[in-house]
């Protein structure tokens, strides 16, 4: 129960926090078609997070709902990886993060579609289709920017370099994952290979940047985040918290 709940929070928080970042693009995208597409990705992730957070509240026996988790936890109770919480940067950096996240999450959902918990398995089974589209979207823009103008290639390379140190956390097992038989280290090889293929096809270099250091061995999955998360949550939670007990 507790492990399943913790795992649902990890995956649910990843989706929620990345959705919040994508939402920030709304009314700021480079083209109306991208407004529509980015909103689509955010809606998919938001949907996944709602199911996962709901499942967490069932599994931990507290009966907490999706909004209890989203609006009433403090920063250190969030379990997302640090990759998803930083500011968007420019469009290229947004695409770079999306490429890393969607490739890794797609590979994970593929495995989880056969997971013991039927609810999580169902989220994964549906999510794998959505993530395939996200990966496709990120890949196509990586190719366009990498193969577009000199400037766009430079931005795309800089975007990849900026987010690369945060990739490793997606493959670093938390004890909960080990106990559930879902060691993300297994994804490292295949995901890196997929990413290398796309990046190379885009005419760019796979960044050599080493993983970002942890803090006393802890990182996002342990509730130790970057400074960006506190500000993100301050905004996300402000209205809900101004009206305790209200229904919306």
């Amino acid at each position, binding site marked *: 129960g507790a492990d399943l709940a913790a795992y649902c929070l990890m995956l649910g928080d990843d989706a929620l926090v990345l959705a919040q970042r994508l939402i920030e693009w*709304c009314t700021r995208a480079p083209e109306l078609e991208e407004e529509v597409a980015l909103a689509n990705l955010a809606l998919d992730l938001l949907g996944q997070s709602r199911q996962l957070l709901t499942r967490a509240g069932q599994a931990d026996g507290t009966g907490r709902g999706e909004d209890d988790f989203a609006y009433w936890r403090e920063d250190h109770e969030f379990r997302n990886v640090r990759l998803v919480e930083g500011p968007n940067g420019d469009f290229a950096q947004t695409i770079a993060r999306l490429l890393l996240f969607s490739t890794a999450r797609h590979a994970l959902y593929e495995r989880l579609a056969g997971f013991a918990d039927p609810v999580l398995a169902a989220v994964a089974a549906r999510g794998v289709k959505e993530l395939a589209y996200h990966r496709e979207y990120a890949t196509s823009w990586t190719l366009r920017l990498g193969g577009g103008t000199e400037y766009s290639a430079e931005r795309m390379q800089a975007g990849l370099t900026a987010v690369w140190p945060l990739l490793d956390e997606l493959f670093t097992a938390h004890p909960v994952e080990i106990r559930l038989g879902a060691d993300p280290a297994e994804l490292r090889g295949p995901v890196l290979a997929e990413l290398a293929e796309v990046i190379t096809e885009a005419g760019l270099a796979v960044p050599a940047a080493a993983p970002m250091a942890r803090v006393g061995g802890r990182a996002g999955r342990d509730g130790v985040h970057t400074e960006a998360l506190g500000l993100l949550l301050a905004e996300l939670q402000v209205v809900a918290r101004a009206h305790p007990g*209200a229904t919306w």
Partner: protein
Amino acid sequence: AELEAHFDAVVGAEQRIEPRDWMPDAYRATLVRQIAQHAHSEIIGMQPEGNWLTRAPSLRRKAILLAKAQDEAGHGLYLYAAAETLGVDRAELTEKLVSGRQKYSSIFNYPTLTFADVGVIGWLVDGAAICNQVPLCRCSYGPYARAMVRVCKEESFHQRQGYELLMTLMRGTEGQRRMVQDAVDRWWWPSLMMFGPPDGDSPNTAQSMAWRIKRHTNDELRQRFVDMTVPQAEHLGVTLPDPALSWNEERGGWDFGEPDWSELKQVIKGQGPCNAERVERRRAAHEDGAWVREAALAYAAKQQKQRGTEK
């Protein structure tokens, strides 16, 4: 002259003019201006509500609001496409928007100050837009009429969602009810002004009606909106901020007070609370995205060239 006679006959018979048909220059110009302004309004209209996307107080409301913003971007896309059938292009229209040479609905120059504003915009602003737009589904220009059918369907959905949000808030805490009343107080008069100046001050109405672009005068639509909205306000339990509002038994409609046309004129002239920031946001997005659009074009060109070489 023969062409013109044919055009007049088609319009008179309530049939549709299509892009390939001959049309008077003034008809084309009126339509381009109106459709562009309508498209711009959809795009700029994403901003006031978009202001609450990151702060929506439940994940369900966040998803609903995001889907609505996405629909509005979609409406902008159909409408720009409809305008393009008249021989202008989207990039050119966007240029005119961000340089302030083309307008959008002045309603979006008011700020959204609480989450209840999201509901009130759905109820009143989308409601007024629907009153304006339903007749456009029968507009004489085919592509515009067809776009409006889809737009109106989605707008009605948004309006119901807005009203439902308000019902939830009115059944909620005192703070939530206060938010709703406050939002209604701020949006009521600007919503009435969405129908344009009084008929006496609206010189273009007659021609637009003759061309079957417009079907009703500003004042007719405004009255229809008030008559529709007053009972909804009662059902909701909010007070509309107009002491002159009273049922007129004789003509079977609601009498109401005069909007502050001088405030509207200020907003139209660019001095509204948000004019500068709305256009600036759109301009910044457009400029910041220029390198992305260029890259996409350059990439497509390279791909096409390569495909040519491979043949």
